[in-house]
């Protein structure tokens, strides 16, 4: 087994999370924002697995939480993309700054 230091894996997932957060903050396209959110969820999953491998005495726990996160991410992607398609059918746009009907 390859044993990396735990902090290196945490730094890696921190960078992945920051990249995803950057995408979620600056993208105009709603689909781009959804993709960035998937990246952030994956960074969280890497953290869960790393902690369950390195520090936990009940190592199944982290993996099961990662399964739940994957299921919730799939649900979020399905509902989000359905909303995007409905929005596109009604307003003919997928850009966040053009959807400002409820914005002051």
């Amino acid at each position, binding site marked *: 087994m390859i044993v990396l230091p735990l902090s290196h894996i945490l730094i890696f997932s921190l960078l992945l999370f920051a990249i995803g957060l950057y995408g979620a903050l600056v993208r105009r396209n709603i689909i781009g924002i959804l993709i960035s959110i998937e990246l952030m969820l994956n960074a969280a999953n890497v953290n869960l697995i790393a902690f369950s491998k390195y520090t936990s005495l009940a*190592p199944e726990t982290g993996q099961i939480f990662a399964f*739940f996160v994957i299921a919730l991410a*799939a649900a979020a992607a399905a*509902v989000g993309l359905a909303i995007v*398609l409905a929005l596109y059918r009604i307003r003919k746009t997928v850009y966040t700054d053009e959807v400002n009907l409820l914005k002051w």
Partner: protein
Amino acid sequence: MPILEMAAKFGVYAVMGVILIFALGVVTLRNLFHCALCLAAALIGIASIYVVLQAEYLAGVQILLYVGAVVTLVIFAIMLTEHLAGKTVRQNNSQSPLAIMALLGFMALIGTVIVKTPWPVTPAALASKVSVMGLGKALMGAYVFPFEVISILLIAVLVGTVIIAKKDTPERS
């Protein structure tokens, strides 16, 4: 064999770097279809990180569910809204410098915490092995209630997605 172990470690770091490069591609490329392909590559890389951390079953689930299902769904959505994403349309809003500065601060803060914290890495946890049987037993034993909640949620999502995405009936519109 220290030289072999060092080569393996170097390989893992290389995979991490490639994942980060693909992730940067996901958030910076102009063509959204290329972004989705970069996302698929990054997800496959993360699955290999799971294999390194000895979570093989999770790596399989990751490839099946993320690369198989979610990326396909995203590509479908991109195709259905495609002709909007022309070459001249701006893909980023104007808050990029602000976001980069805030994220640098965030990364410095969390990175300091990560480096300074004495993580309780135990040899007992490092030596333990998770089998698929153990996962199934935990899922049917201690975590059976969240498991059922997730299944109800997935049915609700299935119904809700169909209702949101279907065309309106003529008498309603």
